[in-house]
Protein backbone atom coordinates (compact mmCIF):
# COMPACT_ATOMS: atom_id res chain seq x y z
CA UNK A 1 0.00 0.00 0.00
CA UNK A 2 1.07 3.55 -0.65
CA UNK A 3 1.90 5.82 2.22
CA UNK A 4 -1.06 7.17 4.11
CA UNK A 5 -1.26 10.91 3.53
CA UNK A 6 -2.26 12.68 6.71
CA UNK A 7 -2.97 16.34 7.19
CA UNK A 8 -2.80 17.50 10.79
CA UNK A 9 -4.78 20.60 11.70
CA UNK A 10 -3.63 21.66 15.12
CA UNK A 11 -2.47 24.97 16.53
CA UNK A 12 -0.28 23.85 19.38
CA UNK A 13 3.36 23.46 18.42
CA UNK A 14 3.90 21.06 21.32
CA UNK A 15 1.13 18.76 20.18
CA UNK A 16 2.26 18.99 16.55
CA UNK A 17 5.78 17.97 17.51
CA UNK A 18 4.38 15.14 19.60
CA UNK A 19 2.31 13.76 16.75
CA UNK A 20 5.24 14.08 14.41
CA UNK A 21 7.61 12.21 16.64
CA UNK A 22 5.11 9.38 17.19
CA UNK A 23 4.29 8.94 13.53
CA UNK A 24 7.92 9.30 12.46
CA UNK A 25 8.76 5.96 14.04
CA UNK A 26 6.73 4.39 11.24
CA UNK A 27 7.62 6.87 8.55
CA UNK A 28 7.36 4.23 5.84
CA UNK A 29 3.63 4.15 6.49
CA UNK A 30 2.74 7.76 6.92
CA UNK A 31 3.30 10.95 5.04
CA UNK A 32 2.44 13.76 7.35
CA UNK A 33 1.78 17.46 6.86
CA UNK A 34 0.69 20.21 9.15
CA UNK A 35 -1.37 23.24 8.41
CA UNK A 36 -3.62 25.75 10.01
CA UNK A 37 -3.92 28.03 7.03
CA UNK A 38 -7.42 28.08 5.61
CA UNK A 39 -6.40 28.26 1.97
CA UNK A 40 -3.73 25.64 2.29
CA UNK A 41 -6.11 23.18 3.94
CA UNK A 42 -8.69 23.82 1.30
CA UNK A 43 -6.15 23.21 -1.49
CA UNK A 44 -5.03 19.97 0.05
CA UNK A 45 -8.60 18.73 0.36
CA UNK A 46 -9.40 19.62 -3.21
CA UNK A 47 -6.20 18.09 -4.55
CA UNK A 48 -7.75 14.70 -3.80
CA UNK A 49 -4.39 13.60 -2.44
CA UNK A 50 -5.49 13.39 1.13
CA UNK A 51 -6.29 10.14 2.90
CA UNK A 52 -6.91 11.36 6.38
CA UNK A 53 -7.34 14.60 8.26
CA UNK A 54 -6.40 14.67 11.89
CA UNK A 55 -8.24 17.66 13.27
CA UNK A 56 -8.43 19.23 16.67
CA UNK A 57 -12.14 20.18 16.60
CA UNK A 58 -11.59 23.23 18.79
CA UNK A 59 -9.51 24.70 15.99
CA UNK A 60 -12.77 25.93 14.55
CA UNK A 61 -15.03 28.60 15.81
CA UNK A 62 -18.02 26.40 15.56
CA UNK A 63 -20.61 26.74 18.32
CA UNK A 64 -23.27 24.87 16.40
CA UNK A 65 -21.11 22.27 14.77
CA UNK A 66 -22.00 23.51 11.30
CA UNK A 67 -18.42 23.73 10.16
CA UNK A 68 -17.69 20.21 11.23
CA UNK A 69 -20.77 18.98 9.43
CA UNK A 70 -19.58 20.69 6.25
CA UNK A 71 -16.15 19.21 6.73
CA UNK A 72 -17.81 15.83 7.09
CA UNK A 73 -19.45 16.47 3.73
CA UNK A 74 -16.08 17.30 2.20
CA UNK A 75 -14.65 14.14 3.66
CA UNK A 76 -17.34 12.15 1.85
CA UNK A 77 -17.02 14.08 -1.40
CA UNK A 78 -13.25 14.03 -1.56
CA UNK A 79 -12.83 10.60 -0.05
CA UNK A 80 -10.76 11.21 3.01
CA UNK A 81 -11.26 10.14 6.60
CA UNK A 82 -11.86 12.58 9.36
CA UNK A 83 -10.22 11.85 12.69
CA UNK A 84 -10.61 14.02 15.77
CA UNK A 85 -7.70 14.85 18.01
CA UNK A 86 -9.29 15.58 21.34
CA UNK A 87 -7.74 16.93 24.46
CA UNK A 88 -10.48 19.04 25.95
CA UNK A 89 -14.14 18.33 26.40
CA UNK A 90 -15.96 18.28 23.12
CA UNK A 91 -19.61 17.69 22.36
CA UNK A 92 -20.20 13.98 21.92
CA UNK A 93 -22.80 14.45 19.23
CA UNK A 94 -20.27 16.31 17.14
CA UNK A 95 -17.61 13.72 17.79
CA UNK A 96 -19.93 11.21 16.14
CA UNK A 97 -19.24 13.02 12.88
CA UNK A 98 -15.66 11.80 12.98
CA UNK A 99 -14.56 8.44 11.71
CA UNK A 100 -12.34 7.95 14.71
CA UNK A 101 -11.24 9.83 17.79
CA UNK A 102 -7.71 10.00 19.09
CA UNK A 103 -7.39 11.19 22.65
CA UNK A 104 -4.43 13.05 23.97
CA UNK A 105 -3.60 10.28 26.43
CA UNK A 106 -3.85 7.41 23.96
CA UNK A 107 -0.76 5.26 23.86
CA UNK A 108 1.33 4.98 20.72
CA UNK A 109 0.07 1.50 19.91
CA UNK A 110 -3.50 2.62 20.25
CA UNK A 111 -2.99 5.58 17.95
CA UNK A 112 -1.52 3.34 15.27
CA UNK A 113 -4.27 0.76 15.59
CA UNK A 114 -6.94 3.46 15.36
CA UNK A 115 -5.35 4.94 12.26
CA UNK A 116 -5.11 1.53 10.63
CA UNK A 117 -8.71 0.71 11.42
CA UNK A 118 -9.86 3.92 9.77
CA UNK A 119 -7.88 3.23 6.64
CA UNK A 120 -9.30 -0.26 6.39
CA UNK A 121 -12.85 1.02 6.48
CA UNK A 122 -11.84 3.54 3.83
CA UNK A 123 -11.01 0.67 1.51
CA UNK A 124 -14.23 -1.15 2.30
CA UNK A 125 -16.39 1.88 1.69
CA UNK A 126 -15.03 2.34 -1.81
CA UNK A 127 -16.32 -1.11 -2.75
CA UNK A 128 -19.78 -0.25 -1.52
CA UNK A 129 -22.57 0.02 -4.01
CA UNK A 130 -25.48 2.21 -2.99
CA UNK A 131 -28.13 0.53 -5.10
CA UNK A 132 -30.32 -1.95 -3.32
CA UNK A 133 -29.95 -5.47 -4.68
CA UNK A 134 -32.88 -7.75 -5.51
CA UNK A 135 -32.10 -9.89 -2.47
CA UNK A 136 -32.11 -6.85 -0.23
CA UNK A 137 -35.47 -5.81 -1.70
CA UNK A 138 -36.82 -9.23 -0.67
CA UNK A 139 -35.55 -8.67 2.84
CA UNK A 140 -37.07 -5.18 3.01
CA UNK A 141 -40.43 -6.55 1.88
CA UNK A 142 -40.43 -9.23 4.57
CA UNK A 143 -39.26 -6.82 7.27
CA UNK A 144 -42.09 -4.50 6.27
CA UNK A 145 -44.55 -7.37 6.58
CA UNK A 146 -43.46 -7.68 10.18
CA UNK A 147 -41.43 -10.89 9.87
CA UNK A 148 -38.66 -11.71 12.28
CA UNK A 149 -35.11 -12.36 11.13
CA UNK A 150 -35.63 -16.09 11.64
CA UNK A 151 -38.81 -16.11 9.57
CA UNK A 152 -37.08 -14.16 6.83
CA UNK A 153 -34.19 -16.60 6.84
CA UNK A 154 -36.57 -19.57 6.45
CA UNK A 155 -38.55 -17.96 3.69
CA UNK A 156 -35.51 -16.98 1.64
CA UNK A 157 -33.50 -20.15 2.41
CA UNK A 158 -30.60 -18.20 3.88
CA UNK A 159 -29.04 -18.13 7.33
CA UNK A 160 -30.12 -15.70 10.04
CA UNK A 161 -26.60 -14.35 9.94
CA UNK A 162 -27.02 -13.47 6.26
CA UNK A 163 -30.34 -11.77 6.99
CA UNK A 164 -28.66 -9.62 9.62
CA UNK A 165 -25.89 -8.68 7.25
CA UNK A 166 -28.46 -7.78 4.55
CA UNK A 167 -30.28 -5.60 7.04
CA UNK A 168 -27.07 -3.83 7.96
CA UNK A 169 -26.37 -3.10 4.31
CA UNK A 170 -29.93 -1.92 3.73
CA UNK A 171 -29.66 0.56 6.59
CA UNK A 172 -26.36 1.86 5.24
CA UNK A 173 -27.71 2.26 1.75
CA UNK A 174 -31.08 3.80 2.56
CA UNK A 175 -30.21 5.67 5.73
CA UNK A 176 -33.29 4.15 7.37
CA UNK A 177 -32.95 2.23 10.62
CA UNK A 178 -36.40 1.68 12.07
CA UNK A 179 -38.81 -1.03 10.96
CA UNK A 180 -41.62 1.51 10.47
CA UNK A 181 -39.29 3.61 8.33
CA UNK A 182 -38.46 0.60 6.17
CA UNK A 183 -42.15 -0.18 5.90
CA UNK A 184 -42.81 3.24 4.43
CA UNK A 185 -39.95 2.73 2.02
CA UNK A 186 -41.49 -0.60 1.00
CA UNK A 187 -44.91 0.94 0.38
CA UNK A 188 -43.51 3.89 -1.56
CA UNK A 189 -41.55 1.53 -3.75
CA UNK A 190 -44.49 -0.85 -4.11
CA UNK A 191 -42.67 -3.75 -2.51
CA UNK A 192 -45.81 -4.25 -0.46
CA UNK A 193 -49.27 -2.87 -0.91
CA UNK A 194 -50.78 -0.39 1.49
CA UNK A 195 -53.34 -3.09 2.39
CA UNK A 196 -50.56 -5.39 3.60
CA UNK A 197 -49.30 -2.56 5.71
CA UNK A 198 -52.60 -1.80 7.40
CA UNK A 199 -53.07 -5.50 8.13
CA UNK A 200 -49.72 -5.87 9.87
Amino acid sequence: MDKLRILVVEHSEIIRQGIFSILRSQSYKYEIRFSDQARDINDQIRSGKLDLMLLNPSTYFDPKGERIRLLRQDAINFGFKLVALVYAYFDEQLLLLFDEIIYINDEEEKIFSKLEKVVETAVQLQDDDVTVSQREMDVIRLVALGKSNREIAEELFISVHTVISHRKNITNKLGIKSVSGLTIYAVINKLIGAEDFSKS
Partner: protein
Amino acid sequence: MIRKPDILSVPKKISASFDIYNYLIPSGHSEFIITGESKLVDIIQLNQRLLLVISRFGISLGFGDKSVAEVCKANGLNTSLVLLVLNVFNSHSYSVPELLPKNYIAELIQYLKNGHKYFLTSKLPYIEELINRFIEKNDNPNSYLLRNFFKEYTNEVVEHMSLEERTVFPYILGLLQQSDVEKADVRQPLTYKIDDFIDNHSNIEEKLDDLKQLLIKHFPPTPDQFFRNLILFELFDLDYDLNDHNGLEERILTPIVRTLEKEIKGNG
Protein backbone atom coordinates in the same frame (compact mmCIF):
# COMPACT_ATOMS: atom_id res chain seq x y z
CA MET B 1 -19.20 42.17 28.12
CA ILE B 2 -19.25 40.03 25.06
CA ARG B 3 -16.00 39.97 23.26
CA LYS B 4 -17.18 39.66 19.74
CA PRO B 5 -14.55 37.86 17.74
CA ASP B 6 -13.88 39.43 14.39
CA ILE B 7 -14.42 36.00 12.87
CA LEU B 8 -18.12 36.54 13.38
CA SER B 9 -18.12 39.53 11.15
CA VAL B 10 -16.30 37.95 8.21
CA PRO B 11 -18.52 35.66 6.15
CA LYS B 12 -22.21 36.16 6.75
CA LYS B 13 -23.30 33.14 4.84
CA ILE B 14 -21.88 29.68 4.59
CA SER B 15 -22.50 29.15 0.94
CA ALA B 16 -19.68 26.99 -0.30
CA SER B 17 -17.78 24.65 1.90
CA PHE B 18 -14.71 26.75 1.16
CA ASP B 19 -15.99 29.33 3.59
CA ILE B 20 -15.58 27.02 6.50
CA TYR B 21 -11.83 27.28 6.37
CA ASN B 22 -12.14 30.97 6.97
CA TYR B 23 -13.64 30.14 10.32
CA LEU B 24 -10.41 28.79 11.67
CA ILE B 25 -9.61 30.53 14.88
CA PRO B 26 -6.22 32.17 14.86
CA SER B 27 -4.06 30.69 17.61
CA GLY B 28 -5.04 31.78 21.06
CA HIS B 29 -8.33 33.27 19.96
CA SER B 30 -11.26 32.22 22.07
CA GLU B 31 -14.96 32.08 21.38
CA PHE B 32 -17.23 34.59 23.01
CA ILE B 33 -18.12 33.87 26.58
CA ILE B 34 -21.32 35.13 28.13
CA THR B 35 -20.92 36.84 31.48
CA GLY B 36 -23.29 38.41 33.98
CA GLU B 37 -22.60 41.85 32.52
CA SER B 38 -23.41 40.77 28.94
CA LYS B 39 -26.52 42.41 27.64
CA LEU B 40 -29.15 39.80 26.94
CA VAL B 41 -30.13 41.50 23.70
CA ASP B 42 -26.54 41.27 22.39
CA ILE B 43 -26.37 37.58 23.16
CA ILE B 44 -29.59 36.88 21.29
CA GLN B 45 -28.30 38.89 18.33
CA LEU B 46 -25.25 36.66 18.20
CA ASN B 47 -27.01 33.38 18.73
CA GLN B 48 -30.75 33.22 18.18
CA ARG B 49 -30.98 29.67 19.48
CA LEU B 50 -30.53 31.06 22.97
CA LEU B 51 -34.09 32.43 22.71
CA LEU B 52 -35.22 28.91 23.59
CA VAL B 53 -33.00 28.85 26.65
CA ILE B 54 -34.25 32.10 28.09
CA SER B 55 -37.88 31.24 27.57
CA ARG B 56 -37.35 27.89 29.30
CA PHE B 57 -35.96 29.75 32.28
CA GLY B 58 -39.21 31.69 32.29
CA ILE B 59 -37.65 34.94 31.10
CA SER B 60 -40.05 36.90 28.92
CA LEU B 61 -38.97 38.97 25.98
CA GLY B 62 -39.12 42.72 26.34
CA PHE B 63 -36.23 42.99 28.78
CA GLY B 64 -34.86 46.20 27.28
CA ASP B 65 -31.15 46.69 27.70
CA LYS B 66 -30.81 44.65 30.88
CA SER B 67 -27.76 42.50 31.47
CA VAL B 68 -28.03 38.78 32.17
CA ALA B 69 -27.47 39.34 35.88
CA GLU B 70 -30.16 42.00 36.06
CA VAL B 71 -32.69 39.90 34.20
CA CYS B 72 -31.93 36.91 36.44
CA LYS B 73 -32.40 39.00 39.54
CA ALA B 74 -35.70 40.37 38.28
CA ASN B 75 -36.91 36.82 37.61
CA GLY B 76 -35.58 35.31 40.82
CA LEU B 77 -33.16 33.03 38.97
CA ASN B 78 -29.73 31.76 39.94
CA THR B 79 -27.46 33.83 37.70
CA SER B 80 -24.55 31.41 37.68
CA LEU B 81 -26.79 28.54 36.59
CA VAL B 82 -28.36 30.62 33.84
CA LEU B 83 -24.90 31.65 32.65
CA LEU B 84 -23.72 28.07 32.66
CA VAL B 85 -26.65 26.90 30.55
CA LEU B 86 -26.38 29.85 28.17
CA ASN B 87 -22.67 29.18 27.64
CA VAL B 88 -23.10 25.45 27.18
CA PHE B 89 -25.82 25.99 24.61
CA ASN B 90 -23.84 28.74 22.95
CA SER B 91 -20.68 26.75 22.51
CA HIS B 92 -20.43 23.00 22.57
CA SER B 93 -16.78 23.24 23.45
CA TYR B 94 -17.53 25.26 26.59
CA SER B 95 -16.07 23.30 29.45
CA VAL B 96 -18.41 22.53 32.31
CA PRO B 97 -16.81 22.78 35.76
CA GLU B 98 -16.42 19.39 37.41
CA LEU B 99 -18.08 20.29 40.66
CA LEU B 100 -21.44 21.98 40.39
CA PRO B 101 -23.50 23.03 43.39
CA LYS B 102 -26.55 21.00 44.32
CA ASN B 103 -28.65 24.14 44.63
CA TYR B 104 -28.78 24.09 40.83
CA ILE B 105 -30.93 21.00 40.88
CA ALA B 106 -34.41 22.37 41.50
CA GLU B 107 -34.10 25.09 38.89
CA LEU B 108 -32.53 22.73 36.38
CA ILE B 109 -35.39 20.31 36.75
CA GLN B 110 -37.87 23.10 36.30
CA TYR B 111 -35.95 24.13 33.20
CA LEU B 112 -36.06 20.61 31.80
CA LYS B 113 -39.78 20.35 32.54
CA ASN B 114 -40.38 23.58 30.70
CA GLY B 115 -38.41 22.10 27.83
CA HIS B 116 -40.61 19.00 27.85
CA LYS B 117 -43.69 21.16 27.84
CA TYR B 118 -42.38 23.06 24.84
CA PHE B 119 -41.68 19.87 22.89
CA LEU B 120 -44.94 18.17 23.77
CA THR B 121 -47.39 21.03 23.57
CA SER B 122 -45.83 23.34 21.00
CA LYS B 123 -43.14 21.90 18.81
CA LEU B 124 -44.44 18.42 18.04
CA PRO B 125 -48.07 19.52 17.45
CA TYR B 126 -46.77 22.27 15.19
CA ILE B 127 -44.81 19.80 13.06
CA GLU B 128 -47.83 17.51 12.93
CA GLU B 129 -49.86 20.44 11.67
CA LEU B 130 -47.26 21.06 8.97
CA ILE B 131 -47.45 17.41 7.96
CA ASN B 132 -51.23 17.72 7.70
CA ARG B 133 -50.85 20.73 5.45
CA PHE B 134 -48.31 18.81 3.38
CA ILE B 135 -50.80 15.97 2.98
CA GLU B 136 -53.58 18.37 1.96
CA LYS B 137 -51.39 20.03 -0.63
CA ASN B 138 -50.05 16.84 -2.13
CA ASP B 139 -52.45 14.35 -3.44
CA ASN B 140 -50.26 11.36 -2.75
CA PRO B 141 -52.04 8.27 -1.41
CA ASN B 142 -48.99 7.36 0.65
CA SER B 143 -48.48 10.64 2.43
CA TYR B 144 -50.64 9.60 5.37
CA LEU B 145 -47.89 7.05 6.13
CA LEU B 146 -45.62 9.93 7.06
CA ARG B 147 -48.20 11.22 9.50
CA ASN B 148 -48.54 7.80 11.10
CA PHE B 149 -44.79 7.54 11.33
CA PHE B 150 -44.54 10.93 12.96
CA LYS B 151 -47.25 9.93 15.44
CA GLU B 152 -45.26 6.85 16.38
CA TYR B 153 -42.25 9.04 16.86
CA THR B 154 -44.25 11.52 18.95
CA ASN B 155 -45.49 8.70 21.17
CA GLU B 156 -41.93 7.61 21.85
CA VAL B 157 -40.94 11.13 22.81
CA VAL B 158 -43.99 11.47 25.07
CA GLU B 159 -43.21 8.14 26.70
CA HIS B 160 -39.58 9.05 27.28
CA MET B 161 -40.30 12.47 28.71
CA SER B 162 -43.14 11.39 30.94
CA LEU B 163 -40.95 8.59 32.27
CA GLU B 164 -38.40 11.19 33.28
CA GLU B 165 -41.05 13.28 34.96
CA ARG B 166 -42.63 10.32 36.74
CA THR B 167 -39.49 8.60 37.95
CA VAL B 168 -36.18 10.36 37.37
CA PHE B 169 -37.05 13.86 38.52
CA PRO B 170 -38.86 12.75 41.70
CA TYR B 171 -35.92 10.48 42.49
CA ILE B 172 -33.49 13.38 42.18
CA LEU B 173 -35.66 15.73 44.23
CA GLY B 174 -35.95 13.02 46.87
CA LEU B 175 -32.17 12.76 47.02
CA LEU B 176 -31.96 16.48 47.46
CA GLN B 177 -34.31 16.34 50.41
CA GLN B 178 -32.38 13.50 51.98
CA SER B 179 -29.10 15.32 51.64
CA ASP B 180 -30.61 18.08 53.77
CA VAL B 181 -31.40 15.67 56.56
CA GLU B 182 -28.67 16.11 59.15
CA LYS B 183 -28.75 12.76 60.86
CA ALA B 184 -27.51 9.90 58.79
CA ASP B 185 -29.76 7.30 60.48
CA VAL B 186 -32.91 9.06 59.32
CA ARG B 187 -31.86 8.62 55.73
CA GLN B 188 -33.33 6.05 53.47
CA PRO B 189 -30.87 3.70 51.85
CA LEU B 190 -30.26 4.40 48.18
CA THR B 191 -32.31 2.06 46.08
CA TYR B 192 -31.45 3.50 42.72
CA LYS B 193 -28.59 5.24 41.09
CA ILE B 194 -28.91 7.95 38.51
CA ASP B 195 -26.94 5.79 36.11
CA ASP B 196 -29.74 3.23 36.16
CA PHE B 197 -31.99 5.85 34.66
CA ILE B 198 -29.74 7.02 31.91
CA ASP B 199 -31.23 5.27 28.98
CA ASN B 200 -29.86 6.07 25.64
CA HIS B 201 -31.76 8.58 23.65
CA SER B 202 -30.67 6.84 20.48
CA ASN B 203 -33.93 4.97 19.78
CA ILE B 204 -35.81 8.20 19.59
CA GLU B 205 -33.18 9.82 17.43
CA GLU B 206 -33.38 6.85 15.08
CA LYS B 207 -36.94 7.61 14.01
CA LEU B 208 -36.25 11.30 13.62
CA ASP B 209 -33.32 10.55 11.32
CA ASP B 210 -35.44 8.11 9.36
CA LEU B 211 -38.15 10.68 8.81
CA LYS B 212 -35.60 13.16 7.50
CA GLN B 213 -34.18 10.57 5.13
CA LEU B 214 -37.64 9.60 3.91
CA LEU B 215 -38.55 13.20 3.14
CA ILE B 216 -35.22 14.04 1.52
CA LYS B 217 -34.37 10.88 -0.35
CA HIS B 218 -37.17 8.43 -0.64
CA PHE B 219 -40.58 10.03 -0.75
CA PRO B 220 -41.38 10.70 -4.42
CA PRO B 221 -41.33 14.28 -5.69
CA THR B 222 -44.38 16.29 -4.66
CA PRO B 223 -45.92 19.28 -6.47
CA ASP B 224 -45.67 21.39 -3.35
CA GLN B 225 -42.24 21.60 -1.87
CA PHE B 226 -42.93 24.48 0.49
CA PHE B 227 -44.38 22.42 3.33
CA ARG B 228 -41.99 19.58 2.69
CA ASN B 229 -39.09 21.98 3.21
CA LEU B 230 -40.76 23.53 6.20
CA ILE B 231 -41.18 20.14 7.83
CA LEU B 232 -37.53 19.38 7.20
CA PHE B 233 -36.37 22.67 8.66
CA GLU B 234 -38.43 21.94 11.74
CA LEU B 235 -37.11 18.38 12.03
CA PHE B 236 -33.49 19.54 11.85
CA ASP B 237 -34.25 22.20 14.41
CA LEU B 238 -35.97 19.70 16.66
CA ASP B 239 -33.04 17.35 16.37
CA TYR B 240 -30.61 20.07 17.33
CA ASP B 241 -32.76 21.22 20.21
CA LEU B 242 -33.29 17.72 21.58
CA ASN B 243 -29.56 17.10 21.48
CA ASP B 244 -28.96 20.21 23.53
CA HIS B 245 -31.73 19.23 25.90
CA ASN B 246 -30.29 15.76 26.40
CA GLY B 247 -26.82 17.23 26.68
CA LEU B 248 -28.00 19.32 29.59
CA GLU B 249 -29.29 16.22 31.36
CA GLU B 250 -26.10 14.31 30.67
CA ARG B 251 -23.48 16.99 31.14
CA ILE B 252 -24.89 19.08 33.96
CA LEU B 253 -27.71 17.38 35.83
CA THR B 254 -26.30 13.85 35.95
CA PRO B 255 -22.86 14.84 37.32
CA ILE B 256 -24.47 16.87 40.12
CA VAL B 257 -26.69 13.95 41.01
CA ARG B 258 -23.74 11.54 41.03
CA THR B 259 -21.95 13.80 43.48
CA LEU B 260 -25.05 13.96 45.61
CA GLU B 261 -25.36 10.17 45.63
CA LYS B 262 -21.76 9.81 46.74
CA GLU B 263 -22.31 12.35 49.47
CA ILE B 264 -25.35 10.54 50.84
CA LYS B 265 -23.73 7.16 50.59
CA GLY B 266 -20.53 8.42 52.15
CA ASN B 267 -22.31 9.86 55.15
CA GLY B 268 -24.98 7.22 55.42
